[in-house]
């Protein structure tokens, strides 16, 4: 029995080792990839993103013979759970997930649990175009070094949007938001933490209230957590009674705010995609009087990545897809507000003129800020802050009834 098992294990491992492509040998990767089917696990709640993924899949199929299947997730954690279940069961090759749209806490957890393949990202042919100096978030995911285990494909930055027909002059700082909410109770809310956008709101508020925001870059354990967050809880104690539904119910995801805004239930919402409002206007999901703004002092920015699980079946195909996502063509399309409105991860000044023209030709969209208006992105706090804030918020407000 024992011998049988080790023979079986050997067969599995040998197969796994032989199947792993070498990212440094790109021609071999392309060759391996041809004919593979890549199951790209990505959140499926946004029609615009789904359309973009379908387009990207069509492109890599035409160019490299890689078929892309979008596994639409209601939660990224479903894909993480899947890989974890496979590891539990000892299925170390032939896994169901080939590529995951991931960042932040999910990446940190998978990296720590050894669930990722790589390093591979810095071997991609398009990697030299990535703006590593100008956008530090592309190699430091919520302060966790990516170490080539994931490849960036879009930049995100927190923006707020408001309906200028109902609210011409929105509040432009966290304290001003509190004052405005007190004067207009029930007209603002945020997605319920631990939804990542809701947690981001907590972090953004902490940036605006903490005495020394630089502390957020260090792990929670190394700081005086109670003292650093005291102003945040005081702020939330005052804000919550003036939230939509007096803070007794929250939207469960970011896009739910679009519907609430369109229904006229709220006047102010936040988003992680600077182009989301313009895209939603184009799709008839928001009135064309909606405008985007950022608060003084800057807003949190981060990058979206794709990562390959350690036991993925189509690793070569997944790398080919990741490389295509970094191409100027795909990046320019993603930045087009009529498509997605995501910021590019490339250094556009390093592109050749023809590729640069793709970006220069983009119309920003009616509700999208120019890069100058958007201002500098604040770095994401260390992931331990998200965990601590979520837990604390849930205990204070999430079970309050």
């Amino acid at each position, binding site marked *: 029995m024992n011998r049988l098992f080790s023979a079986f294990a050997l067969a599995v491992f040998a197969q796994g080792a032989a199947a792993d492509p070498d990212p440094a040998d790109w021609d071999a990767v392309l060759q391996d990839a041809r004919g593979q089917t890549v199951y790209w696990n990505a959140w499926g709640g946004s029609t615009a993103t789904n359309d973009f993924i379908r387009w990207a899949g069509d492109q890599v199929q035409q160019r490299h013979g890689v078929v892309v299947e979008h596994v*639409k997730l209601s939660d990224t*954690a479903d894909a993480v759970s899947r890989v974890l279940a496979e590891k539990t069961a000892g299925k170390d090759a032939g896994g169901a997930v080939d590529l995951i749209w991931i960042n932040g806490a999910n990446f940190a957890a998978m990296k720590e649990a050894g669930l990722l393949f790589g390093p591979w990202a810095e071997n991609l042919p398009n990697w030299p175009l990535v703006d590593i100096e100008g956008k530090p978030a592309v190699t430091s995911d919520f302060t966790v070094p990516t170490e080539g285990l994931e490849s960036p494909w879009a930049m995100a930055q927190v923006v707020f949007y408001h309906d200028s027909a109902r609210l011409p002059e929105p509040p432009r700082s966290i304290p001003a938001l509190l004052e405005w909410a007190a004067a207009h109770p029930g007209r603002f809310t945020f997605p319920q933490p631990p939804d990542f956008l809701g947690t981001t709101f907590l972090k953004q508020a902490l940036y605006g209230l903490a005495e020394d925001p630089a502390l957020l870059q260090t792990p929670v354990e190394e700081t005086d957590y109670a003292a650093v967050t005291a102003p945040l809880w005081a702020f939330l104690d005052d804000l919550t009674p003036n939230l939509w539904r007096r803070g007794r119910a929250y939207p469960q995801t970011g896009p739910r705010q679009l519907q609430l805004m369109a229904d006229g*239930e709220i006047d102010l919402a936040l988003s992680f995609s600077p182009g989301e409002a313009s895209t939603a206007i184009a799709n008839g999901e928001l009135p064309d009087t909606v405008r985007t703004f950022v608060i003084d002092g800057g807003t949190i920015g981060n990058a979206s990545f794709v990562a390959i699980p350690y036991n993925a079946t189509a690793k070569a195909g997944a790398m080919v897809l990741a490389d295509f996502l970094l191409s100027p063509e795909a990046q320019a399309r993603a930045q087009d507000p009529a498509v997605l409105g995501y910021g590019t991860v490339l250094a556009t000044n390093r592109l050749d003129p023809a590729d640069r023209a793709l970006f220069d030709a983009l119309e920003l969209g009616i509700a999208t800020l120019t890069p100058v208006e958007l201002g500098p992105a604040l770095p994401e706090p260390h992931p331990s802050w998200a965990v601590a804030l979520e837990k604390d918020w849930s205990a204070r407000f999430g079970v309050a009834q």
Partner: protein
Amino acid sequence: MRLAPALTLVLLLGPVLAGLAGTLAPALGLFPALGGRSLSLAPAMALLDWPGLVPAARLSVTTGLAATALSLAITALIMAGWSGTRAFRWMERALSPLLSVPHAAAAFGIAFLIAPSGWISRALSPWATDWHHPPDLLIVQDPWGIAMVLGLVAKEVPFLLLMTLAALPQAMPRRSLTIAQSLGYCRVTGWLKAVFPRIYAQIRLPVYAVLAYSMSVVDVAIILGPNTPPPLAVQVVRWMGDPDLTMRFQAAAGAVLQLALVVVVLTLWRLGEGVAGRLGKSWIARGGRGRFDHALGLAGMAAATLTAGAVLLGLAGLALWSVAGFWTFPDAWPDSLTLRAWMRHAPGLRDPVLETVIIALAATLIALALTLACLQAEHRFGLSPGARSLWLLYLPLLIPQIAFLPGLQTLALIAGADMGRGVVILGHVVFVLPYVFLSLGDPFRKWDTRHATIAAALGAAPRRTFWAIRLPMLLAPVLTAAAVGFGVSVGQYLPTLLIGGGRVQTLTTEAVALASGGDRRVIGIYALAQTGVVILGFAAALLLPRLAWANRHALRAAA
């Protein structure tokens, strides 16, 4: 044939028991991939430390009990007040469409109806309410779970009605009612006193299934239920999705607690039956002929209309959204109508529709074959199922899905069987089979065995009797059972996602993923597609017997 009952039980209970083991282990600290290698009480302690535990558990119990009691009461009042009338026949016709609407779609539709910015409020604003902005009222997601109970009742009443209709012939209601009425009892009171006790004995298991389902439902709870804190089952799903992988331990402990809650509440309900029976007996013995009879009948009709209306109007609202241009409060109608959303999503619908139909057909066929084999074995060898094996049949419906599906996923992976359509089909059989068996059992047993005696006398072997006489004669009920099973398969979310590894994409998995974005147009399209597929199944069950038996009047009606 003799082995059919045993095989059926293995197929049903194997996955459930294996899955339970796979959940119990992490709840006790065993999860090697996450470093849990020894027994520990830490997951239980972490669960007890969660400040929302008591309200979340309480919500699970109160919403589950309220939804079940209300559904049962409404079902009884409709039957008591209206069975046999023309209004009732109209209601019977509405039954299959109501059963076809998936729970989540019904919940979304109801949310859009009753929300402060919803359809009802829009229709009344601003001319009647003077609302130019939606009022800030906590109607949907209220902390008591009233909206959630309404959503559950709207879907469970049709199910209990279907089950009651199936049980009706055995209870012989007409004779009892005639006698009761001749003794001066009013219609509703007479029915409740003379018929209901016998009906309840037969629909007891479906009622338990409703109770277990309502206590541990996830999708309806996320859409309509409270979320500060949510009912326990929702919180367990959230923990399972936490980026912090060690929360899986706490999630497993929560799932075990959810299972325990269901078991305790089911036991209490069982004890409550005794108390209600005693109270009912003294009520009957007092001999009241029915003072509020008319009011009770009307209340039943009003409640039934309300719940059916909520589902159908909600679906209509979603259908309108799917073709709506911009549509804001307080407009009762969209600015414009457009097919844009349909054009955009129609190409993406084809593959999931095919996958859904293939899986549902296969799972239904397997379930039908097993059911028929079991019933035929029962008929031929006298292997009659005791009350106990009926319980076993119901087990997959009584155990909360979150308590055994994650464990089942891990075990399927260890066995090396996963990810394919085939395994997903087997997973669906676990849930389809009980419903098929329930729907088909009584009509099959009711078949007049004198036909078999005559066939045998004419020299036909049992096999030939089955294929040439019994099955054709039972075509209508077989197809009805198939349609019910088909609908159950179409609605499965967690089994499809977990066993299929995300690679098997049905309408329901797509709908849930798309719905997480809250876009009502997409939700509307997928809700219509899901409902449409299931309705086609019911329509086939109604039409095929009429076509096949155009010249056999008595065989045409679906049972």
